[in-house]
C-alpha cells in the first residue's frame, strides 16, 4: 500500500495561503492570550488550593456552591470533570485562589473538607463517631480495626498484621471502584465476617471521596513559572545551535522560527479553548519542540542532498521536490505519532488531558509548519539575498556526506 507516490505539488507557490493560515491562527492565539482568556494556568503556576472530589452520584453543584458560600469561602470555582471517555464521572474540582502568604496554605483545604463533611456525611446524627469508609486512609483503617478488634485477637503482632491485611483488602476494593465503595454489604467478598459486622455497625459511607489535593504557595508558583519559561527558551536555543552546527545558520533560524510558530499556536490553542496550562503541558510543549524539529530536519536533509546533486536548478524547485519526496514519510510518521497521542487523549484519563491535547494540536501544527513555514523561509531568505545583488550562498553541505 502506498499513499503518496510521485507527488508533484508546488508548495512554494502556495506560500501566501500558508502565510495567511499561520497568521490567522497565531494572531487569534495571541489576541486570546492578550485580551480574551489570557493564559489559563494550572494550580502549579497560579498557586492556590485544588481539591478533586468524587461523589457516588451526580453532585449538585449549586448545593456545593451554596455550602461553600455559607462556610465563608471566597472565589470558589467548581467545575465538573468531563472527558476521559466517560460521559459522566461524578467528579468535581473545587479550587480556591491562592492565599497571600505561605502560612495560611492549609486553611483552604480544611475549609473545603469541612464543607463537604457537613453536607454529605457527619451532620447526620446516626453517623456521629463512626468511621467514614470512603475517606479513611489505609493506615487509619488498620489502626481502627486493631483497636475495635472484632475478631478478639488481642494486640499481638499477628493480630495487627491480620487487620492491616483486612484494611489493605478493603482499600483495594475501594481503589478498584475509583474510591467509592458501593455498599458495605459488598465488602463481605474481601473481609472476614467479623470485620464486616464491625464495619456495618461502626462505619458508614459518606458518598464522596477526596481523590487529589494540590496546594501551591505563591513562591513555588512563581519559581515554576520562571523555570517553565526558561526551559522553553533554552530548548529553542539548543535546537538553533544544533542545526547551526549541522547545517548553516539560516537553516537553524528557519527551523527555530517554525518551531516557535508551533509553540505559539499550541499555547494559543490552550488560551482559545480556555484550558489550563500545567507542568505536564510544558513538558508536552518541550517534546513538541524536539518532535516538530524532526520533520523540519528530514526536509532540510533532503534539500541538502538534492542541492549537491543539481546545483543549477533554482532553489525553489529543489525545495519543492525535496518536500514532495519526503512527504510520504512526513505524513506517515506524524500520522503514526498522532495515532498514539490520540489514544492518549481518548483513553489516558483526565490527569493527562492537557498533556495529550498539547501533543494532538502540536503534532498537527508541527507537521504543517515544517512544510509551510521552515522551507519557504529558506527560499525567501535566498531571494532576499539575490535581490540585494549577492550570490546565493546556500551551501550544499559543510562536508561530503555518504
Amino acid at each position: 500500500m502506498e499513499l503518496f507516490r510521485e507527488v508533484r505539488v508546488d508548495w512554494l507557490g502556495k506560500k501566501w495561503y500558508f502565510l495567511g493560515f499561520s497568521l490567522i491562527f497565531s494572531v487569534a492565539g495571541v489576541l486570546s492570550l492578550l485580551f480574551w482568556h489570557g493564559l489559563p494556568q494550572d494550580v502549579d503556576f497560579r498557586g492556590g488550593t485544588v481539591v478533586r472530589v468524587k461523589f457516588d452520584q451526580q453532585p449538585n453543584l449549586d448545593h456545593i456552591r451554596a455550602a461553600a458560600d455559607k462556610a465563608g469561602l471566597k472565589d470558589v470555582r467548581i467545575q465538573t470533570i468531563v472527558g476521559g471517555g466517560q460521559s459522566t464521572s461524578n467528579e468535581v474540582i473545587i479550587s480556591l485562589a491562592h492565599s497571600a502568604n505561605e502560612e495560611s496554605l492549609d486553611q483552604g483545604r480544611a475549609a473545603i473538607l469541612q464543607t463537604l463533611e457537613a453536607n454529605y456525611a457527619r451532620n447526620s446524627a446516626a453517623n456521629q463517631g463512626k468511621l467514614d469508609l470512603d475517606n479513611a486512609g489505609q493506615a487509619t483503617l488498620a489502626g481502627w480495626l486493631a483497636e475495635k478488634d472484632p475478631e478478639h485477637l488481642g494486640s499481638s503482632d499477628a493480630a495487627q498484621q491480620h487487620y492491616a491485611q483486612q484494611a489493605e483488602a478493603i482499600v483495594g476494593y475501594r481503589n478498584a471502584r475509583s474510591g467509592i465503595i458501593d455498599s458495605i454489604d459488598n465488602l463481605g467478598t474481601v473481609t472476614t465476617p467479623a470485620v464486616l459486622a464491625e464495619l456495618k455497625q461502626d462505619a458508614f459511607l459518606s458518598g464522596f471521596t477526596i481523590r487529589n489535593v494540590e496546594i501551591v504557595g505563591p513562591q513555588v508558583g512563581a519559581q515554576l513559572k520562571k523555570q517553565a519559561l526558561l526551559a522553553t527558551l533554552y530548548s529553542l536555543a539548543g535546537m538553533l545551535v544544533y542545526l547551526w552546527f549541522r547545517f548553516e545558520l539560516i537553516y537553524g533560524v528557519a527551523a527555530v522560527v517554525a518551531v516557535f510558530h508551533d509553540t505559539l499556536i499550541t499555547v494559543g490553542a490552550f488560551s482559545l479553548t480556555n484550558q489550563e496550562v500545567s507542568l505536564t503541558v510544558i513538558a508536552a510543549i518541550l517534546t513538541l519542540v524536539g518532535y516538530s524539529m524532526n520533520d523540519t530536519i528530514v526536509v532540510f536533509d533532503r534539500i541538502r542532498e538534492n542541492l549537491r546533486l543539481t546545483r543549477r536548478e533554482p532553489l525553489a524547485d529543489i525545495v519543492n521536490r525535496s518536500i514532495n519526496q519526503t512527504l510520504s514519510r512526513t505524513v506517515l510518521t506524524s500520522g503514526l505519532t498522532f495515532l498514539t497521542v490520540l489514544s492518549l487523549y481518548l483513553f489516558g484519563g483526565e490527569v493527562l488531558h492537557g498533556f495529550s491535547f498539547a501533543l494532538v494540536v502540536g503534532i498537527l501544527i508541527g507537521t504543517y509548519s515544517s512544510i509551510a513555514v521552515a522551507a519557504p523561509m529558506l527560499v525567501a531568505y535566498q531571494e532576499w539575498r539575490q535581490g540585494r545583488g549577492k550570490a546565493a550562498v546556500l551551501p550544499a553541505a559543510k562536508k561530503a556526506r555518504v
Partner: protein
Amino acid sequence: MRKNLTQKIVLIFAVLIVFVFGIFGIPKGLSGTALKNAILDRIHLGLDLKGGTHLILQVMTDEAVNFAITNDAAHVQTDLQQNGITVSSVIPDTAHPATILISGAPPDRAGDIRSVLNQRYGNQYDVSSGANNTFTLTMKPSAIADLKKNTMDHSIEVIRQRVDSLGVSEPVIAPYSLGSDQILVELPGVDDPARVKDVIQSTARLEIHEVQGGPWPDEQAALQALGGTVPYDSILLHTAPGASAAGSPNQVYQIKRAAEVAGTDIRDAQASRNQNTNEPEVVFYLTTAAGNHFAEFTGANKGKSLCIVLDNKIQEVATIHDQIRDTGTISGGSMNEQQAKDLSMLLRTGALPASIHYLQESTVGPSLGADSIRQGVLASIVGMLAVLIFMLIYYRGSGINADLALILNLVILLGFMGFTGSVLTLPGIAGVILTIGMGVDSNVLIFERIREELRAGKSPAAAVDQGFAHAWTTIIDTHVTTIVSAAILFIFGTGPVRGFAVTLTFGLLANLFTAVFVSRVIFDSHLNKMQRGATLSI
C-alpha cells in the same frame, strides 16, 4: 552475496534476554500476579500512580543565622568579662543583619578588646571599631553560607529521622532543585498527611533558661514592672497553654536571653507517666558536657528559678533546690499519650535548627493512582496496537520487521528502567507511548527510502543497503533534537515530568539499536533466504 548473520542474531537474542530479565528479574512463578509483582519489584511507581504525598518545604535559614548571632553575643560578653573588660552592652544589631554591636567599651582597653575578639571570633566575623566606643562584629559571608548549608543538611537529617520513626516506607527527603533553602519530601502511601506534616514541622527546640522575673498576667504588666523596657540580655516569654507548674496559662516571665541548655544538648528523651498523677509526661536527659555545665550552674544558683522552654513557650517553671545533673521532665497537663510519644521522639531526633514553612503540598489518593494506571495502560495498548496494525497493512512483509523492532524497543526501554530502578510516573507512561509513536519514525524513514531506491530500479539487496545508509544521518539528527529537548526537561523539570524525560530518552536510545541494527539484521536474514529475482514485500 549471503551475509553471515549468526553473531548478530546471537547478540540480539542476548540483548532480548538481558532486558527481559531487567523487567521481570526472576519471578516467583509464571502466573499473572507473580509476574505483576515481579515487575513492580523492579520498576517503581511514582507518587502519582501509587498514591502518596509530595511536600516542598522551606527552611527559614535566616533564623539559624539570627540564632547564632544571639548566642555569640552572649558569649562575647562572657569572654570580655573573663578578660576583665566590662562593656555596657553586647547585642545583635537590629539595623544590620548578621551583626553584633558592642557599645560602651572602655576607650583605654580598645586594643585588648580587639585582640580578644580577633582571637576568638576572627574566623567567623569581621571585627571593626566605630565611633562612640563601639565595636561591631559582622559575620563573614562565607561563614553565613556555611551556616545556612549546615542548617539545610541538619534539617534534612532531622526530618529523615522523624519520617523514619513514623514508619513511612521508602520516603524521599532531599534538597529541592528550585531553591537553595527548600526541601522535597515524598511520602509514598501517605494519603492523610496531617500528622506527618505536624511532626515534620515541629521545631522541637527545647531550652532551659534562667528566670529573672515574673510572672505577670500579660506583657503590658511585665513592661510596667520593668520600667518600660526589657533589659537587653533578657526576653519576655509566655507560658504554654496547659503548662502545669507555672500556675495559670498564658502568663509572662522575664527570662535570660542566653539559654543554659540548648536543643542540641539533649541526649535522650522518653515518654512516661507521672508517679503521682499518672499524667503522661516526657523525661529528657542531657549530654555529658551539657550535664556538667548544668550541674555547675544549678549548684551555683540555688534558690533561683529555671524554666523549660519548648518552641518559645514556657512549659515548666521550677525553683532550684539542689544541684541538678542531667535530667528534666516536661509534664504539661494537656498532653495525651500520643502527644507525649511524639514529643519524646521529636526531642530524641533533635531540634530543627530553624523553623519550616510548607510551600507546596500535593496528595494523590490511591484510587486516583489506580485509575491513572488503568487508563495509562489502556491508552498505551490501544496506541501501540494501532501503530503495529498500521505498519502491517502499509508495509506488508516489512511491517512484521518494523513490529518486531518496535516490540524489542519496548522491552529494552522497560528493562532499562528495571535495571536502573527508575520511577515510572503517569507522564512516564505517556513517554512510553510516545516512544512507540516516535520510534516508528526511524522505520518509516528507512522503508520509504528503500521503496524509493526500488522504484529507481535497484535490486532488493542494494535498495536495503542504500535505504539504511541514506536514512542513517537523518535518524541521528532527529534523535538528537528530541533528546536535547528531553535533557532540558530533565534539568528543569521535577517529579513526574522528569519521569517523562527519562523514559523518552531511554526509549529513543533503544530505538537507535532496534530500528537501525535489529531491523537491518532481519532484512538481511530475509534477503539471504529470498530466491534470486523475488521482490521484497514492502
